[in-house]
Each structure stands twice: as C-alpha cells, then as structure tokens.
C-alpha cells in the first residue's frame, strides 16, 4: 500500500474507533484524535482546535468537525474517509439499537454511570494535552479559567465561546 492509502486506512480506523467514545454525547473522541495525531506532531494543536471550533458553529451534528481533521491530515480524501469512519459504527450501533431497543438498553445502561467519569477524564486529558502544546501566559490562564467557570456554572454555548474567543483574538490583533 502507498503511504497515502495507508494514511487513509489509519484515518478511517482511528475515527471509527474514536466514535465509540462519544457515549452520552461526550467528547472522548477528541482525546483519541489528539493522542494519535496531535501529540506525535502530525497535526498542529492550532489546526486541531480550529477544526473543533468550526464544528461547533455549523448546523447539524457537531461531530462534523472530524471532516476538518481529515482534510488537514490528507486533503479531500481524508475528509471523505472521516465521514465514512464516523458513519459506519454509528449506522451499525444505532440501527441495532433501533431494532433491539428494549433488549439492548439494559446492557448499555451498565456502562452509563461510569462512562461520564471516563469521558470527563478523556476530555481533561485532551484539554491538558492541548494546553501543554501551547505556551500560555498568566493572563491567558485567567481567560481559560473564566471559560471553564462559564461552561461549568453558566452552561455557555460552545459556539458562543468559540465566536467570543475569535473576536478577542481579532481585537488583540487590531490593537497590537
């Protein structure tokens, strides 16, 4: 297999696998993507965060951000493969769930109480990993802490957080 084909296969496998960590709507998927491509330096933290941010602003499922990850990794074929990767486990899992709705839910329910903590840990890992890849000034720590408090206590919408963060970046650029 050529390098490009093996990269596409890798993207398909990682995205399909990471989809399984979206249990309960959490972003465990982000941690898997970061572990595979951001930490080894294949994808820059800025582009990773950028793709995720855009995904929060577009209509439809927010998981469409994976197409941006695929595009940054391997162009248009990468984006297409990401769509296939996210669709395969979802179509299989959700179709089975729709078919055997009453039978499956008690088995899935066994994992639900722990899944919140596992996904919280994975999101914490993704956030910490991203922060370690960026040199953050003390003032910027205050900015991040404010967002943490806002998201936690006031349930700030991710789209609003992304737009406001981008707006602050524009203001700082204009004032500098």
């Amino acid at each position, binding site marked *: 297999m050529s390098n490009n084909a093996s990269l596409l296969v890798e993207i398909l496998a990682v995205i399909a696998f990471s989809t399984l960590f979206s249990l309960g709507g959490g972003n465990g998927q982000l941690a898997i993507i970061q572990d595979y491509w951001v930490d080894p330096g294949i994808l820059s933290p*800025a582009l990773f965060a950028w793709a995720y941010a855009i995904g929060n602003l577009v209509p439809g499922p927010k998981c*469409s951000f994976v197409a941006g990850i695929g595009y940054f990794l391997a162009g248009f074929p990468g984006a297409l493969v990401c769509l296939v990767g996210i669709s395969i486990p979802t179509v299989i899992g959700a179709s089975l769930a729709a078919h055997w709705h009453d039978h499956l839910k008690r088995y899935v329910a066994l994992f639900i109480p722990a899944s919140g903590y596992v996904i919280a*840990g994975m*999101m914490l890992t993704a956030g910490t990993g991203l922060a370690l890849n960026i040199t953050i000034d003390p003032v910027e720590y205050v900015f991040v802490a404010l967002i943490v408090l806002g998201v936690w206590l006031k349930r700030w919408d991710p789209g609003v957080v992304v737009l406001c963060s981008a707006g602050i970046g524009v203001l700082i650029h204009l004032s500098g």
Partner: protein
Amino acid sequence: MKNQNKQSQLPIQSICWLFFVLGCTCFGGMWAAIDRLQRELVERRKLLTTDDQKSLMLAAAMIPAPKFLAFAVMVGYRVGGIWGAVGSSVAILLPGTLIVIAACVLTITASEHPALAIVQRYVGLGVIGLLAGNAVRMFVGEGLDRDSILFGLVICLGIPVYVILHEGSLIIAACASLVLGSLTIRSDTRPGSADVE
C-alpha cells in the same frame, strides 16, 4: 411501535431530503434542536409520536456514537430500514461537513495572514476552556453516592495522569477505566453526561 413503523415507511430520497434539511437548519446539537425536530418529525410529517421521539433521543444518548447523528440514524432506520439509516446518516452530516471543509480550505489559503495566527491561538485557548469546563460539568453532573464519586475521581484524574505523566496508552486507560467503573459505579437515576456536548 410496530404499527407506527408500518404506517411511516418513506422512500430513501424523501429520507435523505428530510435529514439534509434538518442538517441545514438545526443548530446547537440534538437537545438544542428538540423543538425543530418535533415540529418536523412529529407534527408535520407524523413519522414519530412524541413518546417515540423522547425514547429515541434517550436511546441515542446511551449508545456509543455522536447522539444527534445516532438519533437521525435511528429515525432513518425506523422509517426506511438499513438504507434509511445510511441515507439519514450521510444526509444530516453533509451540510455541516461541507461548511467545515470550506472553512478549512479558506484557513489553509489564508494561513499567511498574521491575524489568523492570533485568532487561532485564542480559539485554541477557548477550546481548552471548553474541554475542561465540560469535563467538570460532566463529573459534577453524575451526582452519585460518596463511594461512586471516589471511584469516579480516581478514574477522572487517573486517565490524564496515566496518559500524560506516565505516557501510557489513552485507549488502554479509557477501556480499563470503563470496565472497572462499570463494576464499581452503579446508578440508574441520573445520566448526568447526556447533556454535555
């Protein structure tokens, strides 16, 4: 439910069009779009009852998949079988995906512009805050007894410590935590994670 299925079969092109329109017009995730979904699926097209919609939304939050996408697939499956599921999946993802790709192409094109680097930096900081804030919210939202919270704290902090400080495998940490957690943590009343995007 079986009667509902028999009465509500749709051709694949109608399913694709329905979910493409929903993919264009629903913002903010599944819970935020609940009214829009109800208007379209329950009131206008009568594909589901209100109870069906709620039940499928809860089921979508319980299976290991992005919940809005899983909800679309479950509805697609019920009204069009397996091809309905495939069609609804592709159709609901398509609008957002096209916009994401367009934005990423523009990002690469404008990568030399100095403003973009600053905007990306602050968006990156915002994403760090979002991840940490959602992690805290998900942890606090579980609302279990003291022993379960203790196990939850070990799991929640153990994963980043193992992965970042000990450079361990995230997948092993996550899978092991899920198995250990399912053996030690029990609750059937508050699925606190279901409302975090």
